[in-house]
């Protein structure tokens, strides 16, 4: 049979190609063969022509190559090369590499173009990630599916644009690209590695897997626990792919000693023997693909590439295609497939999970009666049912005897055995249910027997009422009954059915216990840091490194793994191939085996590193010391390092800088001297300049007509701005803040009018809360703030609108002032021009001071901080919360804050010293008496009655 069609093929040899992969484009005109040095473009219309070449420069072989399956993008193909995918354009007989997709960190195992979106490409890699790329943005993948285990195959579903499947060793995962975090379904498909994965061309739910375990299995992922069908082979199966015509499947085996290099064509309806063999290749078939046919052509062409360096094209004519659909007419078969599928999606919702083979068989019976040559019509139906029954259930055996119209179902579950005889009446399945009878050696209790019997009868009646076969649903019911019963009886771990279903436990949310540390759930968790450095405080660098005696158990050329799941390899003692390759066994000492930890089963990050027991450096010195008895230190030391010399700010300067409002010259000179003592000669010069610029000789005249103010001179404001720019770039906030403060002080506003009308700067807080009052005002040092601000918050001259800032708050108040006298306006402008600090940047300068204030605070220099913050122009945060009104002690009018609005005197008198309180005060909420905080503190340390003598027990009355 085989010889008949095999002779039809085209054979072309490409001796030097050394190609590892092949792909046929969607137009059927070209095949690309990818060798190490060149990509060969074979014209399939004239395959014997010398192929065109595209050079490539890589030391890696091409892993997979694939043309874009969309006609609009038919000129594009992707080739994977180690960690990279290159996109090539093939146009007008020449091709070029276009872009690369880089993102995987290990070799790419497979790639697949989307069937729906010509821009989408999926890649899988042993780095455990599956990336979906959009060729319009090649910088990084658009979707990353984290699979934990390295994938060997990845394939898009052909019917559902969101779904894809990947194979991981013996498992298959189904993904929805919209839910990248986790697979939507797990299928524990094979016990050995899956080499090939292929979606059904027409059915969204069905795919085929080919595996090292000598089988091809067919799956519906909605029923992940049980394959639909199995094709058992004698040898491992390399690839199994559906044919473009119905019900066909082509397999390539992993060649064994006998060197069987043929491709086999199967009918999925009858897996007992292949329909056809494509014989001809002398070596392993590396790739086979179907060449798309011109419209109207009934033939199909299979293009194969083998290690024997020949490309063959096999014609599969309609006759051969028909063999795949048995002897039936194609139309009928197609109709049937549809019926089967629709039935499946329906039945899958039913609890018993019926396979839907029954109805399909019914159609077979109706349309194809007489195909079997023995027995009556009815017996034949039963025989048909038996032959189609799909019951590959673990621990369950069904012996069917069509002649006697009976079958024996035997099942073993745990310690129980069940033997059930099913007898089918002659009318079955036409509204005649079979009988069920338990026979010895059935060991289940009789109550259980009755229960099962009832369930089976119900199930069978339901089916036969619709003239449907019921054997398979009944057996499945039986199994599920027994399983659920066993689960109740035994703990899940010991139940045998758990073993048969390894997927379920792994999907359970892991318990709070950390025994799973480093397991595969940790694939999303970053690999822990074992060294780190952090700037702390103002001038410290805190860092820790792993001890020098701990070495990475991978060579330094390997990057540190990114995810914690990498640890599982070290935990279980399984060596990754990477390690096998690069490290000899003897040097691998997993920490878990060391004496201090041998009792603990937990894996730790330290497992990644191994301890060097003898430091080479001290080897000679310390020989003879029993190292094995010494506990091993896993934690390195934490080093605190003084790095303040690297910073542009100096604590010494912070201490020695002064800000004397009354003598700016002296301030500048002293600061210059201070700068010299810490070796900042540049700062000494800056202070000298500041001294010169603030000299009395240069103080501006109040009359705008006499002279241009010094600020307008190039050495005036411009020079200062240059200085500020320079120190901004150096991040020297200390110098910035000090300069701003000095020049602010140099040009204070004359009248001391308070723009912001401060009233809340002095907080009256209750006695004990004077420490926590800071929380209310938003800063630890509100005490110093409040004093300073009230006195000094006058620097901004409110009488003068600022012409530079449209949105300045002053505009609201002064924007509508009509300037009656132009001289007044000139005077105002002059006042602005007099200043060395550009008033437009006042808020910026304030920020320097605030930031420097923070640093001073960390240094513990609170007075210095207060001194600097005096010069900020913006108001402090207004007080929020409870505020106490005060009756002025002089005029009895109601006042807020410390100063009476009416008599302008301080409102609150201390009950002890009878002096008005200017600073912090506390008072009793009950009697209203109080005074200086320090006096109150002293008083109540010894007393509990009010110092005013009102008899109030302040400490008890007030809620403090």
């Amino acid at each position, binding site marked *: 049979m085989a010889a008949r069609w095999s002779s039809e093929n085209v054979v072309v040899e490409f001796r030097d190609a050394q190609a590892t992969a092949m792909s046929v484009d969607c137009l059927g005109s070209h095949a690309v063969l990818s060798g190490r040095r060149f990509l060969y473009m074979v014209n399939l219309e004239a395959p014997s022509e010398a192929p065109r070449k595209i050079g490539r420069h890589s030391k890696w072989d091409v892993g997979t190559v694939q043309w874009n399956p969309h006609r609009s993008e038919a000129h594009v193909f992707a080739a994977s090369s180690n960690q990279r995918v290159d996109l090539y354009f093939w146009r007008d007989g020449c091709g070029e590499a276009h872009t690369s997709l880089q*993102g995987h960190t290990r070799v790419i195992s497979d790639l697949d173009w989307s069937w729906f979106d010509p821009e989408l490409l999926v890649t899988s890699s042993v780095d455990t990630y599956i990336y979906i790329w959009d060729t319009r943005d090649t*910088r990084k993948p658009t979707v*990353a599916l*984290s699979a934990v285990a390295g994938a060997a195959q990845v394939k898009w579903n052909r019917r559902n644009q969101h779904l894809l499947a990947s194979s991981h060793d013996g498992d298959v995962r189904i993904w929805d690209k919209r839910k990248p975090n986790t697979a939507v379904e797990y299928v524990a498909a094979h016990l050995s590695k899956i080499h090939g994965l292929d979606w059904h061309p027409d059915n969204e739910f069905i795919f085929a897997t080919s595996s090292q375990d000598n089988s091809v299995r067919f799956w519906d992922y909605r029923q992940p626990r049980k394959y639909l069908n199995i094709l058992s082979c004698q040898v491992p199966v390399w690839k199994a792919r559906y044919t473009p015509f119905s019900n066909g499947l082509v397999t390539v085996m992993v060649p064994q000693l006998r060197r069987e290099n043929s491709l086999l064509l199967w009918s999925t309806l009858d897996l007992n023997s292949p329909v056809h063999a494509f014989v001809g290749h002398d070596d392993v078939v590396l790739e086979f693909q179907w060449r798309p046919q011109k419209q109207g052509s009934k033939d199909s062409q299979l293009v194969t590439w083998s290690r024997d360096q020949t490309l063959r094209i096999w014609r599969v004519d309609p006759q051969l295609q028909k063999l795949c659909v048995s002897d039936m007419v194609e139309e009928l078969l197609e109709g049937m497939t549809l019926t089967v599928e629709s039935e499946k999606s329906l039945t899958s919702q039913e609890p018993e999970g019926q396979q839907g083979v029954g109805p399909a068989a019914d159609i077979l019976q109706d349309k194809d009666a007489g195909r079997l040559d023995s027995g009556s019509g009815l017996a034949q139906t039963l025989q048909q049912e038996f032959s189609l029954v799909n019951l590959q259930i673990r621990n369950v055996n069904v012996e069917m005897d069509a002649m006697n119209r009976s079958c024996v179902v035997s099942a073993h579950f745990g310690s129980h055995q069940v033997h059930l005889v099913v007898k089918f009446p002659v009318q079955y399945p036409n509204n005649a249910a079979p009988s069920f009878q338990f026979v010895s050696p059935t060991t289940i209790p009789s109550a259980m027997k009755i229960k099962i019997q009832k369930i089976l009868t119900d199930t069978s009646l339901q089916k036969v009422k619709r003239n449907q076969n019921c054997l398979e649903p009944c057996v499945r019911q039986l199994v599920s009954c027994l399983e659920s019963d066993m689960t109740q009886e035994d703990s899940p771990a010991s139940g045998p059915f758990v073993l048969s279903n390894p997927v379920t436990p792994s999907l359970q949310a892991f318990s*709070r216990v*950390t025994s799973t540390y480093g397991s595969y*759930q940790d694939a*999303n968790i*970053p*690999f*822990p*840091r*074992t*060294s780190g450095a952090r700037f702390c*405080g*103002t*001038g*410290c*660098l*805190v*860092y*820790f*490194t792993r001890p*020098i005696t701990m070495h990475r158990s991978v060579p330094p050329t390997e*990057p*540190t793994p*990114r995810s*914690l799941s990498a640890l599982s390899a070290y935990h279980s003692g399984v060596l990754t191939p990477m390690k096998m390759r690069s490290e000899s066994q003897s040097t691998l000492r997993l920490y878990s085996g060391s004496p201090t930890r041998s009792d603990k089963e937990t894996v*730790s*990050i*330290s497992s990644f590193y191994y301890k060097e027991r003898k430091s080479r*450096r001290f080897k000679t010195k310390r020989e003879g010391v029993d190292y094995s008895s010494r506990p091993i*230190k*896993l*934690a390195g*030391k*934490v*080093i*605190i*390092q*003084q790095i303040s*010399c690297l*910073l542009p700010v100096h604590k010494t300067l912070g201490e020695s800088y002064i800000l004397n409002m009354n003598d700016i010259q002296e301030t500048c000179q002293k600061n210059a001297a201070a700068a010299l003592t810490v070796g900042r000669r540049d700062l000494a010069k800056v202070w000298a300049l500041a001294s010169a610029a603030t000299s009395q000789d240069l103080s501006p005249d109040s009359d705008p007509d006499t002279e241009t103010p010094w600020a307008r001179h190039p050495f005036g404001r411009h020079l200062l701005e240059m200085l500020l720019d320079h120190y*901004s770039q*150096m*991040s020297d*906030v200390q110098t*910035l803040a000090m300069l701003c403060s000095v020049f602010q002080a140099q040009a204070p506003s004359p009248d001391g009018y308070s723009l*912001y009308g401060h009233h809340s700067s002095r907080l009256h807080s209750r006695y004990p809360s004077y420490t926590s009052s*800071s*929380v209310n005002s938003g*800063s630890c040092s509100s005490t110093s703030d409040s004093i300073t601000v009230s006195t000094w918050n006058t620097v901004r001259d409110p009488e003068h609108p600022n012409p530079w800032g449209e*949105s300045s*708050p002053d505009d609201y108040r002064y924007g509508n002032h009509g300037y009656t006298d132009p001289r007044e306006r000139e005077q105002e402008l002059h006042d602005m021009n007099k200043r060395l600090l550009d008033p437009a940047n006042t808020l*910026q300068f304030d920020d*320097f001071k*605030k*930031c420097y204030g923070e640093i001073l605070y960390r240094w513990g220099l609170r007075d210095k901080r207060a001194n600097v913050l005096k010069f900020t122009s*913006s108001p402090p*945060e207004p007080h929020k919360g409870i505020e106490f009104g005060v009756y002025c002690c002089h005029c009895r009018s109601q006042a807020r804050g410390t100063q009476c609005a009416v008599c302008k005197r301080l409102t609150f008198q201390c009950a002890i010293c009878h002096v008005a309180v200017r600073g912090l005060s506390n008072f009793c909420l009950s009697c209203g008496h109080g005074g200086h905080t320090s006096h109150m503190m002293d008083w109540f340390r010894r007393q509990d009655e009010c110092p005013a003598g009102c008899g109030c027990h302040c400490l008890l009355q007030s809620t403090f």
Partner: protein
Amino acid sequence: MVSVINTVDTSHEDMIHDAQMDYYGTRLATCSSDRTVKIFDVRNGGQILVADLRGHEGPVWQVAWAHPMFGNILASCSYDRKVIIWKEENGAWDKMYEYTGHESSVNSVCWGPYEFGLILACGSSDGAISLLTLTGDQQWDVKKISNAHTIGCNAVSWAPAVVPGSLIDQPSGQKPNYVKRFVSGGCDNLVKLWKEEDGQWKEDQKLEAHSDWVRDVGWAPSIGLPTSTIASCSQDGRVFIWTCDDPAGNTWTAKLLHKFNDVVWHVSWSITGNILAVSGGDNKVTLWKESMDGQWACISDVSKGQGAVSAITDSQQNEQ
């Protein structure tokens, strides 16, 4: 001179994952795979164990000190999916709050600027970022940004409290209108900026440059200049410095600091924001400084006694 002022032997039973000093530089907190957090008093070169905090059921990844105006408060996050906030009361450390709202390892915690009160950002491998705020009635309010980073969030870092945009336009006498912002890095190779608007957290920017997981992000402290700076480091070995001069905060430009040979785990800014400490899988710490012309140079192996960090790493190794 750069000098070692203290070497703390933590006596952790397993590897250390983070070490951080408090605001004043007087206490050191460390955390380890041995599931404990330890606090040492390190004043004047001493190392007195103040507290050994046990409560986590898995390795503890990171610690964070709150601003001292709130008291002595430390947050820690762990593989066990918990965030624990510890507080010292009368000299004794105790749990103040335990947050269990994440479904996977919590990888990063960071306290916001004190201007916002006590607010903690937590980034987890479940992809979410939680924001825990202490309300007036001493309850912790939780806001969660779900799916902030696909696969997982590895790092969070707060922006300094500055008024958005230019520094003008502040009505007098009112509280400055600070906008809460922070940056996060995750397994989607992205750096994301988040902003609070009307009490809701919104993704403000998405910065793409890394080709692998982003392992740490650090928002540089402000010295009052209108520029924002962020450092990010990644599994791909690259460290990027992101800057934004745009008052609206929309235009960020990336500059590659360096490509290291191994993963970079951590970046940390000096208080003046001009030195960056970088550490990673190669067990080395390097310091980087921006020169006047805007170039970044490694200063830790430059002379003038500044080579100390690498040098000291060696001497430390000799000790052990």
